[in-house]
């Protein structure tokens, strides 16, 4: 189910502005890869190119290659909509659909695409996805209630359940815990540990401890000066990155010394 991502020579532009320059990396299946780096260094932008979500922004374009196993997702005959069913995404701010119940939110991927599904199939998918997101016990008695009525941490887990319900092979998470309290954060980190059994997970985070706790590999992005494109400085095993980084820049960032 989980797939490998191979990126080579990727440049990302917004109009004439080059936001990310020459990134090449391999993201292993059934592992958690963390992207760290200061704000504006292009890590979120780069993350969004992995499921072509950057195309939602006007004028955004990409040069280079992103392989999902053997498929180039930027190939001429590849439909971005299909890419997104394979590569799901969880956002910084929990964004359940306000017009839908908890139940409908979970199966939104199928419902919005008008997939035919029997009642029992739908029930099973909802229960399985909510259990997978460690939310089932908390909401099983109020599945018909609006998703927007849950707490922030529950909403974020609802969004994870919604993302996994379309059965993607990769899950991208863009600072999923930055708006949550420590207990909700712990719940999500535990969940990430379980999810990596089945998915390739990429997580952007500003929290270095979180990167150290959840990830197997870490990539550090930085930009040489404001207005310059962001670059991948170093990528390696998380343990090694946090104890013996190869680049001086990485060490400065991780230890809190800059420049």
């Amino acid at each position, binding site marked *: 189910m989980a797939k490998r991502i191979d990126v080579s020579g990727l440049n990302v532009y917004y109009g004439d502005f080059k936001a990310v320059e020459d990134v090449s990396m391999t993201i292993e299946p059934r592992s958690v890869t963390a992207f760290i780096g200061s704000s504006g260094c292009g890590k979120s932008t780069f993350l969004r190119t992995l*499921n072509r*979500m950057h195309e*939602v922004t*006007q004028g955004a374009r990409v040069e280079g290659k992103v392989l999902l196993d053997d498929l180039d997702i930027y190939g001429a005959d590849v439909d971005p*909509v*299909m*890419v*997104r*069913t*394979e590569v*799901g*995404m969880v*956002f910084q*701010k929990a*964004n*359940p*659909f*306000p*017009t839908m119940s908890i139940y409908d939110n979970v199966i*939104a*991927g199928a*419902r*919005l*695409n*008008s997939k035919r599904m029997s009642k029992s199939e739908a029930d099973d998918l909802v229960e399985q996805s909510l259990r997978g997101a460690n939310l089932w016990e908390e909401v099983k008695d109020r599945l018909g*209630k*609006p998703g*927007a*009525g849950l707490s922030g941490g529950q909403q974020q887990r609802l*969004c994870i359940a*919604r*993302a996994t319900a*379309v059965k993607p092979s990769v899950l991208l998470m863009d600072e999923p815990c930055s708006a949550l309290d420590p207990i909700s954060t712990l719940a999500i980190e535990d969940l990430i540990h379980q999810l990596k059994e089945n998915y390739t997970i990429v997580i952007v985070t500003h929290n270095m401890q979180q990167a150290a706790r959840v990830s197997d590999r870490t990539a550090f992005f930085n930009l040489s000066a404001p207005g310059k494109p962001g670059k991948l400085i170093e990528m390696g095993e998380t343990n090694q990155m946090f104890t013996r980084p190869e680049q001086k820049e990485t060490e400065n960032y991780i230890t809190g010394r800059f420049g």
Partner: protein
Amino acid sequence: MNTTTTQPSGAGTGSPANEMRRGSLPNHFPAMLLASCAAVVAGILLAFSSFGFLLWGLLTAVAYVVIIATASARVEGGRKAKDRLVTAVVYGCFLVAMLPLVSVLWTVLRNGIVRFDGYFLSVSMSGVLPSMDAGGVYHAIVGTLAITGMATLISVPIGVMTAIYLVEYAEGRLKRIIIFFVDVMTGIPSIVAGLFVVALWMILFGPGETNGAAGAIALSVLMIPVVVRSSEEMLRLVPQDLREASYALGVPKWRTITRVVLPTSAGGLTTGIMLAIARVIGETAPLILTTGSSATAINWNLFDGQMMNLPVFIYSQVRMGGAVNYERAWAAALTLILVVMLLFFLARIIGRMFAPKTR
């Protein structure tokens, strides 16, 4: 604010703790002051036997504002005095703004109620001479509902789809051009819209052809820009997060729009459409030109002959000038206001049904 002790501002000086203490006027002071101002002003005016409601209200307001500002400045200090002053002025402006509205409603209600009954609502003017004490407004209600209904059916799809295009798809030059022309359309005088349709009908059907459909087209010319602008605002209020959440589930753009964006903004869209209907339902000039002003019988067919409607009914009754005509005009005006209020009531219910819920 909650303390009722009156204390001169000079009392607490010295330590910083005392600097923070201020005297305050008693809670009931503004109400008492207003009442006594009104009483004193009324007394003075009556003494000079020049009492008038407008003068009374104006002088009371001035006296109240001056006294409360001065009293507050002495007791509570400058910032609170400004607060009191601005509060008084804002309330005053609110009352002034409400005056014409209440006055209009009251006048229409008082004059309209004379003839407003089941008979008036359920019969037409067919076979009724203008000066007879008979006849009603049923044919005009039918016309107003049919013409406005058709105008809505034309304007809402065009308007909402234009708004969707502007918000979700358009970029660059074409977008600016469309927005510019929609703004220009908003400013078209309604009589010009009527003339436009008269000219169009002249070309299509020859001279002298008047029917309900012509009126509906004229109204939709006025209605479309209003629907576009209000729908555009509502669609822009839908958070970008929700669109991205939908895309990230592998949902194509058109389904995201129809299944996420439109339902989320449905309440606002309904309100906007209702406001647009209210904008055109009272239009008179274009309808006189396009639907004729002499129909007296009930006509449900938009494509066959003249069609009476409420605004034109009011206009033509007033033109006739007899006492009974004025009564009919007022009663029809009351009917029109009630129809609009009914529509707004419906809009609120529909809006509430669609509104996103949290529990």
